[in-house]
C-alpha cells in the first residue's frame, strides 16, 4: 500500500507534486516524528524498568495506580486524559516542523536554483504553491498522527503492564476498560486541525516570507512583526498586530471551558472546538491567509531566481 502511494508510474501531476514535497521535506515530515516516537518508547522502557520506586506527590507510582482503583467515575477521565496528553511532545514537534517547512518551501528552491528545473515542467505556479501549502498544513500533521497513536498504544500497554505486574488489580479493570477510545482518536485529529486553521494566517505569513526573502526567511519572519509591534507601541500607542496574533490563540481559552476532562463528556468537549469556526475573527484570518497565498503565487510567477 505504501509503495503504491510513494511511487509514480503514470502521468499524475498532483501526486507527483506532493511526493516531490515529501521527498524534499522528508526530515521534517517523517524522520522527526519517527525519532521522537522512538525516543519516547526508549525512555518509557527505561522508566518502566527503573522507575517503580519513583515518587510523585509523596507517593510512589504504584500507589497512584492502586489509588486510581478507588476513584470511581473519575478514573476514566484520568486514564483517557493521560493518554490524550502522552503525545504532547510529538504534537509540539509537528508545530515546529510546520513552521520550518513553511519558511523553507518557497525559499530553498530559489536558493538552490531548483526552481528553474521545476519551472521547466508543465505545472503552474498556482498548483505548486497550493501543494506546498497542503504539504505544510495537511500532509505534515497527517503523517505524524499515526505516531501519536503509537505513543498512546505504548503508554496504555505500559500502564496495563505495570498494573498487572505490581498490583493485585486486573489491567483490564484499571486501565483498558477505562479508556474512552473514541475521544482519544478524535483528540488526535480535531484540536490539531482546528489549531492549524486558526493559525492559518501565521502559517501563510511564513510561506509568504519564504517566497520573497533573499536570505534567512526565519529572521525576517520574526523581525518584521516584532518591529511593527514595537513601532505601533511607540508611535501610535496601539497594539493592533499583537492583538491580532493573540486572537489566533485566544479561542483556545474560550473553548477550553467546555473542554474539561474532569466533568462532562470528553468527546463533546472536543467537538465543541468546531464551534469556534462560527466566530467572524476566524474567517478574517482565513481571508488574510488567502491573500498571502495569492501573494506567494504571484511572487513565484515573477521571481524565478533570487
Amino acid at each position, binding site marked *: 500500500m505504501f509503495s503504491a502511494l510513494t511511487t509514480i508510474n503514470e502521468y499524475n*501531476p498532483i501526486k507527483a507534486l506532493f511526493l516531490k514535497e515529501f521527498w524534499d521535506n522528508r526530515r521534517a515530515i517523517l524522520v522527526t516524528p519517527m525519532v521522537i516516537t522512538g525516543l519516547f518508547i526508549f525512555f518509557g522502557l527505561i522508566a518502566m524498568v527503573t522507575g517503580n520506586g519513583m515518587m510523585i506527590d509523596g507517593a510512589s507510582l504504584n500507589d497512584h495506580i492502586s489509588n486510581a482503583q478507588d476513584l470511581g467515575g473519575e478514573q476514566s477521565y484520568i486514564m483517557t486524559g493521560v493518554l490524550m496528553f502522552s503525545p504532547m511532545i510529538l504534537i509540539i514537534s509537528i508545530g515546529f516542523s510546520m513552521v520550518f517547512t513553511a519558511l523553507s518551501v518557497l525559499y530553498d*528552491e530559489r536558493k538552490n*536554483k*531548483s526552481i528553474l528545473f521545476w519551472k*521547466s*515542467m508543465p505545472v503552474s505556479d498556482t498548483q505548486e504553491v497550493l501543494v506546498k501549502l497542503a504539504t505544510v498544513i495537511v500532509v505534515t500533521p497527517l503523517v505524524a498522527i499515526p505516531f501519536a497513536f503509537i505513543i498512546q498504544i505504548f503508554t496504555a500497554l505500559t500502564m496495563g503492564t505495570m498494573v498487572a505486574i505490581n498490583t493485585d488489580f486486573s489491567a483490564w479493570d484499571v486501565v483498558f476498560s477505562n479508556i474512552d477510545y473514541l475521544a482519544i482518536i478524535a483528540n488526535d485529529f480535531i484540536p490539531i486541525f482546528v489549531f492549524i486553521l486558526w493559525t492559518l494566517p501565521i502559517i501563510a505569513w511564513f510561506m509568504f516570507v519564504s517566497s520573497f526573502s533573499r536570505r534567512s526567511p526565519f529572521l525576517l519572519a520574526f523581525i518584521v512583526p516584532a518591529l511593527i509591534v514595537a513601532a505601533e507601541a511607540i508611535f501610535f500607542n496601539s497594539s493592533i498586530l499583537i492583538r491580532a496574533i493573540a486572537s489566533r490563540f485566544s479561542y483556545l481559552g474560550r473553548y477550553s471551558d467546555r473542554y474539561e476532562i474532569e466533568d462532562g463528556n470528553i468527546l463533546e468537549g472536543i467537538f465543541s472546538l468546531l464551534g469556534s469556526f462560527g466566530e467572524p475573527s476566524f474567517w478574517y484570518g482565513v481571508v488574510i491567509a488567502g491573500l498571502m497565498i495569492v501573494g506567494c503565487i504571484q511572487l513565484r510567477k515573477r521571481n524565478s531566481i533570487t
Partner: protein
Amino acid sequence: MTNYISAKNLSKSFGKFDALRGVDISIKKGQIVGLIGSNGAGKTTLINAILGLSSYEGELDVLGLDPQSQRDQLMKEVCFISDVATLPSWIKVNEAVQYVEGVHPNFNRSRAISFLNQTSIPMDKKVGKLSKGMVVQLHLALIMAIDAKILVLDEPTLGLDILYRKKFYDQLLEDYFDEERTIVITTHQVDEVENILTDVIFIRDGEIMYDASMEETLATWKTLEPNPDRIDEARALGPYREISSLGRTSFIFKGSDKATLQEFGEVRRLSLSDLFVTLMTGE
C-alpha cells in the same frame, strides 16, 4: 516553414538598465539556432522571456502561446536546461525520473532509463552525490526522453570538461534532433557549437547585431591570407577588417567572390568566433 518562436519589438528593463531593446527574431521548425553574445549581452534575458520565466514588453509568440501567462501549457512542448545545475541535490536519480513521469504527459520513461543505462549514474544515489558531469547527463537524459518541439539550452556545458562537452552535443544530434524539433543554444563558447548550428544570432547590449543562416554566413564572409607580395593589392579590394598577428596579415571580406580573392592568396572560411569578434568590435 512553421514559425515556432517569433518576437517583435521585445524589450525588458531592470530599473534603468535596458537588458533587451526592441528585439525582433523568428525561429522556425527544424532550426538549430546559436544565440551568441558576451556576458551580460541579454542572452539569458531573451531566453527567460521565451520560457515564460520573466515579464517583458512587446510581442512574443511561442508555439501560439503567450509564455508569460501560459508557461505551464508551453512547457508541454518546450524543454530547457539552464546555465546552472538546477536539479536539487536532495533528489534521488530514480525520484527525478518518477517526478518527470508524473508531471510531464510527453515523457517516455523507458527512453530515459535507456539513456541512463548508457552512463554510470546509479539510480539510487542523490544528485548531490553525483559528479557535475553526471548531473548534466542525468538532466539531459530526462529532457531527451520528453517529446517536445523546442529545446532551449542556456550555456549547457558550462563547467564541464572537454570530453563531456563533445559527448553532450554528439548525443543531442544523434539521439534527439530531427526536422520536427528546434533547438536554441546560448553560449559564449562559439567554437564548440559552430558545426551543429543551422542559424546564428549575435546579440550585444540587448540588440540583435546579426541574424542569418550558417549557409548564408559562410557564403558571405571569408578570410583571405594574402601572399606577402600581394598584401597591398588585396587591401585595395576593401576588406571589412584587417588582422595582423605574429607578423602575418589577413583580411576579412564580406560578400566578395571566392574566385576573385583566391588570386591573392589562400581563402578560408571565417570561423564564427572571428565573425563574432569582427562584428562586435564593430568598426
